[in-house]
């Protein structure tokens, strides 16, 4: 059996680890366009902040590829899939045949079509190690950095460069920060916190054009800057599959076995759309945990074990200037709310289940809430009032607790069939 994996990040690692659980002999070929040992993309902001270094950024140890017997083709880009011949054609003309193919191609930052942008030199995206290095290179003391986008990437970038004696200005079309994961109230709280850390916001506005290194906003505001960071979003890399005739939407469409519409081709991670259990909608959930678990699911199925991953939900854990934010699920239904200015908690529930939550500050035991969403735990089987106030196992029945604390532990995010142990 020969496995070919396009992509060398989280989903790829998940797949490799799963494949090697079931198949010690098959060939695994990894094709990656970056030249680096697998590293954790979200850590690039911590790298700039000095909280980590390139050695510690490695997502798996140096011996990962050798112990998992992976053949690497790094610095190579897959250009085409030949479905008939079951092979992948690389940018150097080589072909790589496969029995099972995994697309773990991730996503690419969106570069918006703003007049004047193309002439600019000091503009950077912020998703890869090379991006981070290039940005760091361009910074200097007193530099005015304009970040387009007040989402996760933009704000983590802001935090990353905050110790570098630069001025940070952030513009977003949305009237609030972190609009994809926070509601108005919590977003307001976070914005104030960020402003306390000297980040200047222009929200609800967009850049209509650049005049040299001055951004012109739709309300006429002119913002002079030295360095531009583009963090307006990412787009799944779906062209390989789309061109091969596979079903795609904004992302690659996969089933709960991470299969694409083309036989023997699987996809996992940021390039995919998947079912959000909390909302019932199919969407792109470009999140590292989901990427790993989809990769793992793909790897299991590729290596012959029937394995289902059907518990994906949007979830985020992010720290910004010492304030921790944890969110998950969908913000619909009735709410439970408490806040004291420092801490913030909002739970969203309807139809006897928890749909989503936002925690800021005190994030203790957040996973208890996450599990309620993921497992669709009927709220009438627990002491919901108590769990709203204090997340814990106390809210469950005595029997459930006995099972959780006294039984053999097999938390399922999936239905592992024929596997009793993950090592």
């Amino acid at each position, binding site marked *: 059996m020969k496995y070919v994996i396009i992509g060398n990040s989280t989903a790829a690692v998940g797949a490799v680890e799963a494949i090697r659980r079931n198949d010690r002999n098959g060939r695994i070929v990894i094709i990656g366009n970056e030249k680096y040992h697998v590293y954790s993309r979200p850590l690039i902001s911590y790298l700039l902040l000095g909280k980590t270094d390139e050695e510690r950024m490695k997502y798996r140890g140096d011996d990962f590829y050798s112990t998992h017997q992976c053949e690497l083709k790094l610095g190579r880009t897959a250009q085409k899939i030949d479905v008939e011949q079951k092979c992948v054609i690389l940018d150097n003309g080589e072909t790589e045949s496969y029995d099972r193919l995994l697309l773990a191609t991730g996503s690419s930052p969106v570069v918006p079509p703003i007049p004047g942008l193309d002439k600019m030199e000091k503009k950077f995206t912020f998703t890869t190690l090379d991006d981070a290095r290039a940005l760091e290179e361009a910074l200097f003391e007193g530099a005015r950095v304009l970040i387009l986008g007040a989402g996760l990437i933009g704000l983590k970038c802001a935090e990353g460069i905050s110790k570098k004696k630069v001025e940070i200005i952030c513009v977003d079309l949305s009237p609030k920060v972190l609009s994809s994961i926070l509601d108005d109230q919590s977003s307001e709280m976070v914005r104030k916190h960020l402003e306390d850390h000297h980040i200047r916001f222009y929200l609800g506005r967009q850049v209509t054009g650049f005049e040299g290194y001055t951004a012109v906003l739709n309300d006429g505001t002119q913002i002079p800057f030295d360095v531009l960071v583009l963090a307006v979003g990412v787009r799944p890399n779906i062209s390989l599959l789309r061109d091969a005739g596979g079903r795609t939407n904004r992302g690659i469409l996969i089933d709960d076995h991470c299969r694409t519409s083309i036989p023997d081709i699987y996809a996992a991670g940021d390039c995919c759309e998947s079912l959000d259990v909390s909302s019932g909608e199919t969407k792109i959930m470009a999140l590292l945990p989901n990427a790993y678990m989809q990769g793992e699911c793909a790897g299991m199925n590729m290596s012959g074990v029937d394995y289902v991953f059907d518990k994906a939900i949007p979830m985020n854990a992010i720290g910004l200037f010492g304030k921790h934010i944890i969110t998950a699920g969908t913000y619909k239904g009735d709410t439970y709310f408490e806040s004291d200015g420092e801490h913030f908690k909002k739970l969203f529930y309807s139809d006897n289940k928890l749909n989503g939550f936002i925690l800021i500050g005190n994030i203790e035991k957040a996973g208890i809430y996450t599990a309620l969403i993921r497992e669709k735990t009927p709220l009438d089987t627990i002491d919901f009032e108590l769990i709203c106030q204090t997340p*814990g196992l106390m809210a469950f029945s005595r029997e459930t607790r006995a099972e959780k604390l006294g039984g053999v532990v097999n938390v399922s995010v999936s239905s592992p069939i024929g*596997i009793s142990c993950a090592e």
Partner: protein
Amino acid sequence: MVVNCQLKRVYVNEKWCLGCHLCEYYCAFASTGEKDMARALKDIRINPRIRVEERNGISFAVSCRHCTEPLCVKGCITGALSKSGGIITVDRNRCIGCYTCILSCPYGAVSPSEDGAIQKCELCIKTHEGTPRCVSGCPNGAIVFEERGE
């Protein structure tokens, strides 16, 4: 492929938990490396890896279950959490304190430590004669360390 992995784990039986919180203190003590508990914990606000939940006369301790399908490990963005030999450990040097594991753990068994990196039960069996300190310190056998079948 079915892998047999019977391993000793910490199990909690709330029937015998007295809510005395000694497990928390023994846990905190275990991680100090000190020989004398009084010296180790005097005037210190402990931040143990095992936590007692209590309410209306019911109490029980919760610590890492070392799940077979560990969501914390799968979700860890740095690779600082890993599992080997049945034990989930954290490489504190690599943890950057994003708390995705806190978001993931269905037991609430992962918590921030003083320096921001996460902490969790890593089974202090190497240092304490093969028995975790919370287990040996429990006065009523409410926390046991044993192998159990499915």
